[in-house]
């Protein structure tokens, strides 16, 4: 029996012995995502049990080294693990900014001590992380950030404000970019620092969007003392860490944006249109809407083919790089077009914000249309993506 077959067999056995029945099968009790952190609740004790088992095995982050809370699996083993879990209808629901964004940066830039301190708590979901990059004056021009950290003995004293700190109000720690040298050229005086949000002087305030409540917050730092040991990488070299991390963020946003797109597609555009417009002469009642739907469907095919092509190219080592900006740009706009179209099809029904007599789905369509407006702005505006394409891909001069 080969190693991988052995692994498969032992995994299967372990799952049989350890995965609670309520956490298996098509109607399992698992939530889509467990974000972790101090506020995480487990209404079903079986889920907690299942999480503990997974954490113990290192299977929330199976490819991470064991010393950081993983299981040190090879890619092949990880694939088998996922397949076996899938086969019995279970999975590891732990997912977080810590896993997807901070951890890769720590793996690359942190000291051994820092890794041993923070990675296991990410792997176990003990600590939930959020990100502090943007500031009111530093949006597209992120590197112009002003939140400052002044050295005082073994601490930095931090003062300033961050915005768009997603989930800050429910997170335990924040990773931040702060200015440590106000006199250096703007990309050179920035450091990357980890802050316990329970520290005195840290406060958060949720941001209300045009679509209503949102996961975003403003986060304020008022003479917050943070040990110098919490700095990742060298002082004033935080921009390198940030760039590595931004790449991960864009990938994630594209993924989320896809999620939000498909969220809207609970009923397909076409189904909505058929209900609203009926048939006329054997085709959809409104020829203009019909051709817009065809256009978005064809554009989606083109987008998916492009994703396939570049993914294959990347796998074949033919590289991808800044073309990623293209996906963020195109997908966010495509989803906006779909949301706009859907709202127009729904007409008066989807103008409702609230009240005594409306359909919940219609209201949702309105909220999603509005929330979708953020997709071409947050995580790098469309204009920034166009700048990146023209500079990095097309090589146009400054």
């Amino acid at each position: 029996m080969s190693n991988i077959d052995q692994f498969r067999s032992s995994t299967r056995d372990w799952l049989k012995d350890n995965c609670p029945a309520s956490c298996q099968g098509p109607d399992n009790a698992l939530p889509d995502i467990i974000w972790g952190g101090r506020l995480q609740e487990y209404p079903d004790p079986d889920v907690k049990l299942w999480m503990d088992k997974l954490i113990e095995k290192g299977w929330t982050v199976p490819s991470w080294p064991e010393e950081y809370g993983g299981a040190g699996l090879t890619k092949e083993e990880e694939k088998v693990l996922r397949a076996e879990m899938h086969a019995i209808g279970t999975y590891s629901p732990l997912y977080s900014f810590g896993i997807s964004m901070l951890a890769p940066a720590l793996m690359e830039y942190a000291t051994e001590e820092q890794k041993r301190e923070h990675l296991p708590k990410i792997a176990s979901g003990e600590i939930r992380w959020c990100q502090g990059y943007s500031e009111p004056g530093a949006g597209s021009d992120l590197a112009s950030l002003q939140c400052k950290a002044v050295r005082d003995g073994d601490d930095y004293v931090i003062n300033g404000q961050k915005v768009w700190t997603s989930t800050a109000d429910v997170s335990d720690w924040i990773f931040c970019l702060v200015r440590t040298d106000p006199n250096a050229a703007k990309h050179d005086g920035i450091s990357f620092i980890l802050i316990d949000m329970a520290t005195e002087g840290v406060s958060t305030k949720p941001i209300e969007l045009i679509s209503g409540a949102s996961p975003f917050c403003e986060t304020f730092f008022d003479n917050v003392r943070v040990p110098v040991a919490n700095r990742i990488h060298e002082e004033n070299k935080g921009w390198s860490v940030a760039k590595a991390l931004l790449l991960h963020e864009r990938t994630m946003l594209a993924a989320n944006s896809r999620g939000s797109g498909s969220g809207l597609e609970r009923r397909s555009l076409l189904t909505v249109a058929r209900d609203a417009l009926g048939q006329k002469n054997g085709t959809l009642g409104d020829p203009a809407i019909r051709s817009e739907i065809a256009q978005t469907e064809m554009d989606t095919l083109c987008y998916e083919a492009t994703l396939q092509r570049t993914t294959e190219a990347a796998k074949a080592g033919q590289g991808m790089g800044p073309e990623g900006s293209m996906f963020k740009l195109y997908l966010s706009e495509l989803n906006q077009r779909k949301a706009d179209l859907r709202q127009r099809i729904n007409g008066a029904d989807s103008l409702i914000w609230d009240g005594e007599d409306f359909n919940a789905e219609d209201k949702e369509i309105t909220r999603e249309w509005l929330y979708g407006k953020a997709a071409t702005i947050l995580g790098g505006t469309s204009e920034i993506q166009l700048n990146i394409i023209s500079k990095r891909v097309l090589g146009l001069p400054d």
Partner: protein
Amino acid sequence: MSLLLNEEQTLLKDSAKSFTDENTDLEAMREKRSRSRIAEINKDLWQKIIELGWTAIPFSEEYGGLGLGYAELGIVMEELGRGLVDVPLFSNIVLAGSVIDVAGSQEQKKQLLPKIIDGSTFISLAYQEGARHAPYDVSSALEPDPKGFVLNGKKQLVLDGGSANHLIVVARSSGKKNDRGGLSLVIVDAQQEGVSVKNNLLLDSRRVANIEFRNVIVSTDNVIGGIGESADTLDKIYTRAAVALSAEMLGGAQRAFDITLEYLKVREQFGAKIGSFQGLKHRASRWFCEVELSKSIVLKALRAIDSDDPEQKRLAHACKARTSSTYHLSGIEGVQMHGGIGVTDEHDIGLYMKRARVTELLLGDAAYHADQFAKLSGY
């Protein structure tokens, strides 16, 4: 007919401008939205408008009006649109007022016009049934009854319907759904037995109602115009309403543009004002052109109504199509050019995007009006 303002119109514009500057209260709008289910007309604001005489603008002096026209009403609508001032001028004066003015009997005019002018009664027009504007898509049924008529049906998107004392209802006396013939207009007391009103708040924090009529008795006195013969009246009303609404939309689009232009001149990124970036400059310039084109067609269409120009319908369609796309663009570009702050509730630009969306779809969107324009032009 000149598209410039005459002296009196210029005075009216100045006064409307001051009014808007003093009465734009977007904080109140945000607050109202959070108390969503209990939205009501701001009666103080409405009283000021009555005192300024604007509710009297389009009506004949015989009934307490000023005997002016849509050129003047448009000036007021534009300014109210600029400030997102939320008053029932469109619902009461443009929609309901026009029905009475166009098709009401001498008696009906005498009884109702003075009251809507002085604010002692509120009247809403209940016309829409489906999700999209379709003038003859009416199923609400008006049938003969020993006491006159009996009305059954459901209406939605009744503007300011929850605050109305009376409703003017478009109902079908004969024919099938979408037939042009067979439509009637009747007045119903909002308190009458069988009328049930449910209030909603729109995206833009304005009030609409879904209203159901169950065996509501209508006396013959309360029929406006001939039974089954109201299609011409409705065509006229929708023409006027589309243009008056366009004037409001123009004001909103212009203001969204102005707010954004100002932001482009002050916001700095990458060590420069963002208005110095050519990508944004060119978009702003194109946007400017769209607003200018909208301004011209609104002025033209308003005057065509006043002179009863045979082209008024085509102009009205061209006008609403244009302002729909311009206001839409203004909302979208406004928010996008503001970046992050633009999608937060705290910044005003988003409120314009929301109002743009509502007005864009009210009375037919750009595609609807292009279709009607083509139909009227014979193709």
